[in-house]
Each structure stands twice: as structure tokens, then as C-alpha cells.
């Protein structure tokens, strides 16, 4: 881990079997109510029988470097941390939901009980202690690689240099911190 970490994730969709372990792990880790989600899996189908394939794409907050949700927030509750994480200060959130509508990734959700908007924080409370987000640690096929892009020796830095990755929604000028291997 470098002195000024820049947290990022590489998601290898060619290994994702859509088991939803990451979704369930996130649910427990963040003690989410039944119908609130920080991450999800999207499924696509290609081709015609018998030339056919599917792809599962894990989707969540992309921790954009140009996050629309931060720009639109009228109270400054949504903010970008120095380590790249997009976070919400729930004390400042008035629940206008403008950020939800601004997010191309549909990554934000209203907390039913308290009314604030919350989202994936890369399990920020664990970071800096050599710990991984819940979705990363539980993945049976190692779809997710998480780490510090500013550390040249991190697994993610090495992978980013050797694999072709894409940022989803790059066109929208969001500059995501999650990179996908589409295969």
C-alpha cells in the first residue's frame, strides 16, 4: 500500500458465474435491509441456439474520478475522498435523490428507515488495514481484484498493465475506478 493510496477494482467478467455470493456478502457486511443493495449482477445473453453465450457483469458504485453524484449533491453530503472513494456523509444528506438519478450505474439506494442515500464504500471502514471489501474476499472464482493503483507492486497495478480493461460508461465522462475485463 502506497502513502497516498488510490483504491480501484478490476472485475473479470469472463470468470463470473453469477452466483451472487458478492451480493450476499455485501448485504451482511453492511447490515443492509432486505431490499437495499450496494451491488448486483447483470446478465446478458448472446447468439442463437446452439451458438450461444451469457455474460454476468457485477455492477456497483464505480467510485468515479469525475462522479456525477458528487457534482449534483446540493448539500455536499456526497464527496470524493483523497483515496478515490466516493463517500456519503449521511448527516448532511437530505434525501433529495438527485444523486440517485444522476448515477449512470444505478448504484445508490435510499435507506428506508432513515431516509439517507447510501452506497458501496469499497468497505472503506476496513481499508488501510490490509483488508478487502466483502465482495472481493468471498468471490469463489477470483473475479474481483482490489487494491492500490498508486502502489506499483500491487496485484491490481500489475493486472492493469497486462490485461485489456474497459471502463463502463466511459463516454459519460465519469472516469470510473472500476475496470472490467470483458473477454
Amino acid at each position: 500500500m502506497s502513502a497516498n493510496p488510490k483504491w480501484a477494482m478490476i472485475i473479470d467478467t469472463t470468470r463470473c458465474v453469477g452466483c451472487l455470493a458478492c451480493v450476499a456478502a455485501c448485504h451482511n457486511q453492511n447490515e443492509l435491509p432486505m431490499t437495499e443493495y450496494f451491488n448486483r449482477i447483470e446478465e446478458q445473453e448472446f447468439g442463437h441456439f446452439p451458438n450461444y453465450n451469457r455474460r454476468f457483469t457485477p455492477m456497483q458504485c464505480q467510485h468515479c474520478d469525475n462522479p456525477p453524484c458528487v457534482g449534483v449533491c446540493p448539500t455536499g453530503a456526497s464527496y470524493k475522498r483523497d483515496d478515490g472513494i466516493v463517500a456519503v456523509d449521511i448527516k448532511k444528506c437530505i434525501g433529495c435523490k438527485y444523486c440517485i438519478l444522476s448515477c449512470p450505474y444505478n448504484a445508490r439506494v435510499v435507506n428506508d428507515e432513515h431516509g439517507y442515500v447510501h452506497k458501496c464504500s469499497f468497505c472503506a471502514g476496513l481499508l488501510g488495514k490490509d483488508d478487502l471489501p466483502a465482495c472481493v474476499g468471498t468471490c469463489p472464482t477470483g473475479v474481483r481484484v482490489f487494491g492500490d493503483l498508486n502502489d506499483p507492486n500491487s496485484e491490481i497495478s500489475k493486472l492493469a498493465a497486462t490485461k485489456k480493461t474497459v471502463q463502463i460508461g466511459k463516454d459519460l465522462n465519469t472516469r470510473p475506478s472500476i475496470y472490467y475485463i470483458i473477454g
Partner: protein
Amino acid sequence: MGNHQIKRTQTLREIYWNYLITFYLFSAGISAGAMIVSIAADFINPAKYVSVVRAGAYIAPFPIMAGMVGLVFDLERPWLFWLLLTTFQYKSIMSVGAWIISLFSGVSIVYFIINLPKDYLKLKSKTGTVNTIKLSGFVLSTCVALYTGLLLSTLTARPLWNTPMIPVLLFISAIIDGLAAISLVLCLKRGGWGGAPNETDFSHSFITKVDFTLLYFLSLATAIFLIGMGRSTESAVSALAVVTGGGFSVSFWIGFVAAGIVIPFIAAAYELFAKVKTHKPWLSFISATLALLGGYIVRSVIIDAGQLTKTILY
């Protein structure tokens, strides 16, 4: 054989902004529109169009106040509403808008008072101050009318909103709505506030001409919006399809296009080209009511359909 994707779901489940936000944007539009029309009439000929000036001034402060109540109740945490006014986030249209609307509310109240028959504020002699109020009122109401569209059009995640035509459409529509509100008031307040014998007819004629012009531009803006979206990205085309051909098509074509544009346009054209000189309250009433209905429906359609469609990412 190339890989082609079979599934492409465009309709999402959630509505985050409901009718309260539609009402908020609609009422802000009426207030801003009424203010713009009133001040414009005042600049052109305050004596001849005194009824327009006064009706506009009397309307302006109130719809937006009701709208603000709606906005507060749409918040998930309405008790924290005040946080909007303890910070200024220049990047956030909503934050900027909250400040503009606050200023607008203040100015519109002052403008309302100075247009009352009695000179409560002892300002009638101070022309400079009054003109400053009018000028700032004009600028602020323009900003409010633009704000309602910019609030939506700056979100890249929502293809239906993310077009420069949305603020144009909603701006023109806001002035039409303000004008319609003034027209309705003049239907109720027979004779207006004029001293001259034909004042109501003058005011009405003014309203009809402006209305005709704005409806003409609104129909152009709508056409450009439809053509532009229809020839845009897959996201835009599929979002537009939800409006023009999906579950919103009846609201859009009948509620907005027919009731909100075509019928008032025909009514205005009839009055202009048949050279109807006298005010026909029943016709004005129908035309203004339809225009307001169209104004509400188009916002409702745009807000709902905009939320139910999103930019296709991959």
C-alpha cells in the same frame, strides 16, 4: 454470425421523484412565467397593459411557495430541508436553484407589494429602486424558468433529460403557463384593474399575441426535441420510444401535444386572424386551462419517463 445481444431492458422499476416534483417544477414555471410576462408588459406599456402587469405580479409569489412545500415533502428527510440553505455548491444545479428560488421568492413578494394599489413600501416615487427590483425580478424569474429544465438536462445518466432541448422546452412552456395563469385571472376578474374603457381587451390582445408566438416556438422546440432524440444514440431512441410509443404515449400526444399546444394555438390563431377585438372569457378560460394542463402533463411525462429510462452502458 456476430454476437448480438438479445435482452435490452429499458424500463426500470423505480420512480424516485414523484408527482410532488412535477408539481414543484410546474408551479415554479408558472411563477417565473407570470413574473416575466408581467415585467415585460410593464416595460412595454404599463398603462395599457396594467391588468397583465398586476395579474402577473399578484400570481408570481404563490405557486412557487406551494411548489416548495411539495419539494420539501418529496425529500426523504424533510426536517433537514434547511441544510440546502447553509451551503452553496456551485456545481450543483439544485443548490444554485435553491438559492435562486429563495431570492426569487423575496423579490417576487416585493414586486407583488409594489403593484398593490396602495403604496405600502413608500417606493412609488423611487423610480431607480423600483426599476432595480423589476430588472432583478426579470433576471431571477428567467433563471428560475431555466433552472427547472437545467436540473434535468445536466444528468448524463438519463438520456431523455440529457438534451439541451429540455431547458428550452420547459422555459417556453413556463412562460406559456405564466401567461395562461394571468389569462385565467383576467377571466375571473372581469374588467381587470384598468382605468381605460377597453383595457381588458388590450390586455387580452397582448396575451393572445404573446401566446401565439410562444406556442409557435414551443411546437418548434418540441419538433426539434423529437427529431433530435429520434436520430440520437440507442439510449435516447429507446428512451424516446417510451414517451412517444410506450405507456406515456397517450399523455404525451393527447395531454401535451393536442391539449397543450395544438388547441391553444388554434384558439390564438382564430382570435388573431379573425380579428376578434373583444375579450371572450369562455374561450380564454378553455384555452388557458388546456395550456396549463399541457404544461403539467409534459413535465409529468418527462420526469416519470426520464427516471424509468437510463443510459445504456454496454
